């Protein structure tokens, strides 16, 4: 049995490291295939003709729900770091969650677009591909939003019938793509009105720590935000994720945004966010399509625990 002792020590030792708290977060039936629920289709594609991010290539996936009827316009949600969200064994299993919630009419018929960050393939022999993820996701400003709105989404959804209304569009991300999702809606609230951020990097990777200050001193924008983070998230050179997310929540509260904030006890992983996704979607889509203008900033506001 001797060889097992280090393994046991590792496992038992693991009991006392905070990160294992995420073991408490389990996917519910909403995130698992259910009999009698029609399954949508997922197709994989590659985008390699960006003008806004020249030279980049990236994979993307399109989910079309079984209930989609080309004669009726559907809603749209765009997931950054898409591979992790579309993965049927991943943290969120979005296609299954959409199947279940659309079937129960807890969210509208919604197309899912899952997009990876770009990489710039090396062309010199022996060269390494360069990651464009931080440049695209962590940078403030409208470049990424414009990439989605002006370039990518019109092309990849051209054969789909979509509602042309910001209330019908959401954007989602995790970590750097969490702040990216917020940035896209912040820059283009005329296009995106719903934001989900898991463990969002509202820290100083490329200046994103300024959002709480900007939110407090900017006329409120018509966007609805669900933030998730964990007490044991990162504390590194870029900043302190739990403090940064608390600052975000406090700023959204101060500026009377329609937001929710869930602080768990997990680390830098999608596990807690993934288990919350069905609840996030129900909350974001709760009144669609009868989203009242006055509820956008005054309705179900100021939820969550801002210490």
């Amino acid at each position, binding site marked *: 049995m001797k060889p097992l002792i280090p393994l046991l020590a590792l496992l038992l030792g693991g009991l006392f490291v905070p990160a294992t708290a*995420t073991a408490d977060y389990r996917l519910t039936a909403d995130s698992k295939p259910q009999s009698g629920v029609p399954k949508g289709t997922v197709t994989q594609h590659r985008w390699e003709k960006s003008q806004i*991010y*020249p030279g980049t290539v990236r994979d993307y996936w399109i989910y079309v729900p079984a209930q989609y009827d080309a004669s009726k316009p559907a809603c749209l949600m765009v997931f950054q770091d898409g591979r992790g969200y579309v993965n049927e064994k991943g943290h969120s299993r979005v296609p299954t969650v959409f199947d279940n919630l659309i079937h129960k009419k807890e969210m509208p018929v919604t197309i899912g677009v899952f997009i990876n960050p770009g990489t710039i393939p090396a062309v010199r022999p022996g060269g390494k591909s360069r990651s464009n993820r931080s440049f695209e996701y962590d940078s403030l400003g409208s470049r990424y939003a414009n990439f989605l709105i002006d370039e990518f989404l019109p092309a990849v959804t051209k054969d789909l019938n979509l509602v042309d209304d910001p209330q019908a569009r959401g954007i989602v991300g995790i970590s750097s793509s969490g702040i990216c999702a917020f940035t896209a809606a912040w820059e283009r609230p005329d296009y995106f009105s719903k934001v989900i951020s898991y463990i969002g990097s509202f820290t100083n990777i*490329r200046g994103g720590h300024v959002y709480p200050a900007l939110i407090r001193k900017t006329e409120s924008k018509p966007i609805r935000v669900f933030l998730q983070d964990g007490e044991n998230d990162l504390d590194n050179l870029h900043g302190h994720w739990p403090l940064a997310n608390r600052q975000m929540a406090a700023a959204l509260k101060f500026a009377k945004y329609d937001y929710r904030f869930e602080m768990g006890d997990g680390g830098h992983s*999608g596990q807690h966010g993934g288990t919350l996704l069905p609840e996030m979607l129900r909350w974001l889509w709760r009144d669609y399509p009868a989203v009242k203008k006055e509820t956008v900033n005054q309705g179900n506001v100021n939820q969550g625990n801002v210490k």
Partner: protein
Amino acid sequence: MSCGKHCLPVLLISSFLAMSQPLAAQDMPLTQVLIDGEDWQSVSKGHRFTDGLTTDAEGNLYFADVAAGTTINRIGLDGKLTAVADEAPRISGMHFGPDGRIYACQGGSFGRIVAFDLKAGKMEVIAENVKPNDLVVTSDGHIYFTETAKMQVSHIPPGGNVQAADVASKTDGPQRPNGIALTPDQGTLAVSDYGGRYTWVWRVAEDGSLDVRQSYITLRTPSPDFPSKGDGMTTDAVGRYYVTSAVGLQMFDPTGRMGGVIAPPTNKPIVSVAFAGPGHQYLYVAAGDEIFRRKTKTSGIEAVRAKQQ
């Protein structure tokens, strides 16, 4: 799911697996580079304006004195200062080529790229009628240099003529291209902007041409309306970028995220940086009349190439 104590390890393992999915590139704080207790040490002083730091495969440091010097100086691994070339005025950037010669930018009224064969004591003019500031040479002999006033990155293929690899406009690209460096794989070229906020990168093609320019790296500036004064550049063996600037020596990880700002040795501006010394493990900077170095936990890309050769 209901289970007894016996399935706890399974849960733990699955949570470890979930945690192990990397969401971000590895973070690279300054503590990965700097060594506690190691500070800048003066290694040569009494010059006028030092610049053009570079190194050879052994780790000897070479530098020029732009203002006064007519020499190229070497600080050997033994710490001794030697003049290795004379009649070499106005040198602002240097880099060894694969042929063992030092390629150099010669500014002022010279306006040319030259190559010094130190063993033979000969100098060859490689290109004339240029306004070079700093340069880098690939292991297969492509020369890239900045022409600051022309807002241009220029390229000389092996045995070929000077061509504009990229020219910035007033609204896009480096306004005052200055420092220049290659990643360890030589697939990405980076250029600092003395007059702007960014260090720009390009992809290097097999024929040496550059494409897909990007403002990949954002520098810290002393104030919002002040440029970075990005000047001399180098990279290390893991692909971190180092840029001398108005606020110190700025370090960035290979994905362009700032790792931190290393304090300059004195209040004089630092304008050039290189890894040299034993194992290329020392950062050297030119700070006006003086050269400083400090030991690090990393090493320069010259060390990578030295292993390849």
